[in-house]
């Protein structure tokens, strides 16, 4: 099961986050900081799955943007890994280039579309 979905830039700023399990707001910041820290410290030779506490992080990097998905141990890592790419392709299709800034309405559209393709992901909203 997907626990959360994050888009974070290299400076560690969260560009988009969606939690599918309740996490308190103040704990989110801490979690996001730790998550991006562990992603940034990885090299290309390392695998895209990080064991983090009692769940797994699956991440992909697109230029300066990291997409990180937190899942529990019943999830198929490869499927999520490729799902991230699918998601990015959809964003690309809509906005021609996935930049850092998404305005709220465009966020909604792209999430709707992503949901169409993979309903596992309920609409994600931008929130900073």
């Amino acid at each position, binding site marked *: 099961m997907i626990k959360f979905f994050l888009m974070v830039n290299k400076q560690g700023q969260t560009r988009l986050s969606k939690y599918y399990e309740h996490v308190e707001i103040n704990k989110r910041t801490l979690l996001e900081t730790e998550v991006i820290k562990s992603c940034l410290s990885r090299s290309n*030779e*390392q*695998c895209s799955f990080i064991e983090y506490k009692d769940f797994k992080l699956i991440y992909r990097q697109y230029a300066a943007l990291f997409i990180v998905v937190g899942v529990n141990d*019943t999830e198929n*890592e490869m499927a999520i890994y490729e799902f991230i790419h699918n998601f990015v392709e959809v964003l690309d299709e*809509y906005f021609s280039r996935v930049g850092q800034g998404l305005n709220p*309405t465009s966020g909604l*559209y792209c999430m709707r579309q992503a949901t169409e393709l993979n309903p596992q992901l309920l609409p994600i909203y931008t929130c900073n």
Partner: protein
Amino acid sequence: MPAVSKGDGMRGLAVFISDIRNCKSKEAEIKRINKELANIRSKFKGDKALDGYSKKKYVCKLLFIFLLGHDIDFGHMEAVNLLSSNKYTEKQIGYLFISVLVNSNSELIRLINNAIKNDLASRNPTFMCLALHCIANVGSREMGEAFAADIPRILVAGDSMDSVKQSAALCLLRLYKASPDLVPMGEWTARVVHLLNDQHMGVVTAAVSLITCLCKKNPDDFKTCVSLAVSRLSRIVSSASTDLQDYTYYFVPAPWLSVKLLRLLQCYPPPEDAAVKGRLVECLETVLNKAQEPPKSKKVQHSNAKNAILFETISLIIHYDSEPNLLVRACNQLGQFLQHRETNLRYLALESMCTLASSEFSHEAVKTHIDTVINALKTERDVSVRQRAADLLYAMCDRSNAKQIVSEMLRYLETADYAIREEIVLKVAILAEKYAVDYSWYVDTILNLIRIAGDYVSEEVWYRVLQIVTNRDDVQGYAAKTVFEALQAPACHENMVKVGGYILGEFGNLIAGDPRSSPPVQFSLLHSKFHLCSVATRALLLSTYIKFINLFPETKATIQGVLRAGSQLRNADVELQQRAVEYLTLSSVASTDVLATVLEEMPPFPERESSILAKLKRKKGPGAGSALDDGRRDASSNDINGGVEPTPSTVSTPSPSADLLGLRAAPPPAAPPAPAGAGNLLVDVFSDGPTAQPSLGPTPEQAFLSELEPPAPESPMALLADPAPAADPGPEDIGPPIPEADELLNKFVCKNNGVLFENQLLQIGVKSEFRQNLGRMYLFYGNKTSVQFQNFSPTVVHPGDLQTQLAVQTKRVAAQVDGGAQVQQVLNIECLRDFLTPPLLSVRFRYGGAPQSLTLKLPVTINKFFQPTEMAAQDFFQRWKQLSLPLQEAQKIFKANHPMDAEVTKAKLLGFGSALLDNVDPNPENFVGAGIIQTKALQVGCLLRLEPNAQAQMYRLTLRTSKEPVSRHLCELLAQQF
């Protein structure tokens, strides 16, 4: 779906956003925002009614401002107004604002719910979807209460559009996850299963997610999904790469749906219907075949999607664990991945193979990859991949490759990452013990461990090597020689000093013949380390010294000199000082004979599950995949393991503290008056001697209780009295338990010691101690008369299935008990799995020629095997939530039978065995506890909550455990205590 277009108006919004982006400073941004807020406020307050477009634009701006991190305290009403617009874009912005900004306690919630209700009933698919998305996004309990009943209807309605069905399924899933109790099960469940046949792949995908979640709770209700899932899967797998159009991803048909279907199938056992099963096996084979075909695309996306399906297929094969052919094929496929250039694939292959190794069908196939895995351990650049390789080596280890694997792991340990060293140490120690053929190899391995990673060698590991050396005559000499050599290294780890000190103290005599390791040399070698060591080690060394005085009288003068030195006798540490004083006195006062008795060689340790294994399991935590595998494998390889034990066949159950006696801070010789001998040493564990024991009378409170509660005649034991003798190998039948048996048993639920039974003739006292799944019980039978009891024979009987649940070993007692005398009987107890009824104790004897017999319930209840677990409030609630199936919970509301005193309640709960968690329950009056019931076969996590209501003199007790009968049983046991 309306596309984003620049011409969609809202120029004002675009201008505002670009203004904000262009702001050079934070101050400028805030200024710009405040200006905009003032503008919007005046527009909203203005007399002129705003049209939908302007409302939408301003609400959008507010939303953007909110997302930038500013508080928004107005505009909600306008957003709610947008909900009733008939224009998609306006409605959509309204819902967006609501989902992000409106919280449940808002006064607007009624208006919002009304708008949602209208949209749900509108029959306009777009509006229905918007409403469903809003419910899912808010996902609050209130939303659930308002709509949970409507959504299943929309989901299965024949005229719902595909997109609506899809959204409804996901919305329901979300509500179910948030508050499962709100989603009513009903006839719609059967129709949901049929959505797997839907033409629209999006609907199928959403439905699979929903069913996978729902079927975990009610597997039977959704059983029919198996055949539907198989046929759907088969259609996808066999479709051509372009058949599914939009749902084909880089020439792979519906990869995510396939993965989900495969995962759904893992919720169930293999299909029983031969046709369904045949079709499924065909699917699985097709997936495996496709992996061997040349890829249809060179793109990495293609192979990733294909591999996602492949890995899920392999998990299903492992889950079924019944098709040897498929298991071996899966193993070969993973073997190819082990050498793939993609790190991700190597990681996943190692991970999957680890579970494959535990299947009897594929264990051998996994073993063939040993060289590749060892190579991975050496060359992988990613620590998590190396860790997986180490796990896999551990899982594939058996007698044939143990030496190779252990030596490779030892080599890896030298360079291993600090984070995983302790785990590797534990694993090496376990493998070395489990598969040791000759014990010199075992000793070498453990000493190497200490040399390489001394800091990470936990107590359990070095305790264990001492236990094994003590129990094996043939290795003692070798061990003494090896530690002696190891200690000669200029710098050796403190753990080495501990092991060395203990082994030389016990078995130093075996190498004393060699002039190079003569007693004075041994002593000075040990003593040269003394001053560098911590207090605990020094204490251990002092005990070694006194043992030396016994073993080697020629060292007596030197050692007494050391003990007498001011630095010992006046040591600031009380423990060291006491040992020095006592040992010095002992060595000068006691005769050689006495000394030899007191300092006799340690008796062999009773055997049981390796404490290291327990530690590894603890480290991984219950529920961790590989920990479970360990359990499974251990069960199957018990015979191999048995080789280690001095008495291999008996499932004997030692005193829980037996091993610690010799090894903890105070070794047995430290207690000067203690006569040697296993039995007595063990009794010393208890705070008071056995003689002090049976004097405990029933407390007034208990007497009160016994008057208050009538004996329970409907005891289930009455039923069991008949079948019991069949299970009992004993020669005679036993009678039903005495009527008070239940009540007597209840007294012992929260305590371990006391008087179990008393009449004019006989008093039976109990002392017991439990740890993990093991327990030892002492029964004291006191003859209260002045006449000898004859043919005295107490036996323990397992009624019904109990034999398979609880192993109780008894020692025979003398057949005669003199008048006024007391005999003691030792019971070793091992909990194999959860049990509900206690064993029976049948006591027969002849008193003055008349046969007497008595049947009691032995005070062994499942809660004795509780391990208290401390956890933070957050963890508690998370676990509480995880155990939310109705059968996992047992609740009882009952009247208080005793005065409601918080301290007494606390003591009872602790006596019951759970940990008491403070600061978890918001109400300080309530008690919250947690623990794990340890049985050999499984562990049962258990959470409890007791809510006293002083006014009503009532309690409410709620138990949640991972096993349904256990919840009920514990609840009943505990409820009788208050």
